[in-house]
């Protein structure tokens, strides 16, 4: 896949600043034209592209589509003030032209797999296979399609088996419900961790060229 480095950094800084100043950052909807200073309101992706298509942000700024999809998911889960702050923090994380963001999403997925709570041995084994693959991709190495597909099938089987175990044990439902409630309470912390992880990975991405 063609690697496009970060570019037009000064424009990114100016446009993000203008959208924040215009109170144009609105979670929950793609670009909605209006007569404010930037011509409308919208979510993370649409404030960068004035559309529902992330591709222009890749072409103009070198922000990859997987990175933007992940950012959008985090953005939509944050309270509006923090969602705006997250969007506003993007240029500082990018920091310059010439940065390669093409592997940030693999780093992010590996970090999230490692952040999952402790699992049974079978499930852990399936997850560990995928973590190994994510680490390879994050380092720019190959994870062959067949190996990735086998790992996906193994993890999917583990998911089905774990789900069947829950169905077989009614008591587990009560435990799961209790855990789910606790998880909901912890969801905000998880989203903040994901936000911080993504911004740090963007900041740490290598500068390898001039971004032309």
């Amino acid at each position, binding site marked *: 896949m063609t690697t496009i480095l970060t570019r037009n950094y000064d424009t990114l800084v100016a446009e993000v600043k203008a959208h924040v100043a215009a109170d144009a950052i609105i979670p929950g909807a793609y670009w909605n034209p209006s007569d404010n200073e930037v011509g409308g309101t919208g979510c993370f992706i649409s404030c960068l592209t004035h559309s529902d298509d992330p591709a222009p942000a890749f072409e103009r700024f070198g922000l990859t589509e997987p990175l933007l999809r992940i950012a959008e998911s985090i953005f939509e889960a944050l309270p509006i003030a923090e969602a705006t702050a997250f969007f506003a923090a993007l240029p500082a994380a990018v920091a310059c032209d010439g940065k390669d963001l093409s592997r940030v999403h693999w780093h992010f997925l590996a970090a999230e797999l490692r952040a*999952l709570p402790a*699992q049974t041995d079978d499930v852990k084994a399936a997850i560990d296979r995928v973590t190994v693959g994510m680490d390879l991709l994050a380092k720019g190495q190959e994870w062959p*399609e067949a190996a990735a597909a086998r*790992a*996906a099938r193994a993890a999917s089987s583990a998911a089905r088996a774990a789900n069947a175990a829950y169905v077989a044990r009614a008591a587990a439902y009560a435990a*799961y419900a209790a855990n789910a409630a606790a998880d909901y309470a912890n969801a905000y912390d998880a989203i903040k961790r994901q936000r911080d992880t993504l911004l740090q990975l963007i900041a740490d991405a290598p500068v390898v060229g001039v971004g032309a």
Partner: protein
Amino acid sequence: MSRKEYNAEVYAAVIDGALCIMGCIVVFALAISAADAAAFSSAAAHAASRQNLIAALNAA
């Protein structure tokens, strides 16, 4: 349809699917059940598999 046009169509379908999975897995990551944890890792591996397919199509 030419081979090039066919590859372009497959490419678009594959990358849309991979991006959709990537967008969803952030939500999966919040869940704590073993089934969801395994499903999350499966989605990540699927995305990786699809990216390799995209690279192969581009090289064709």
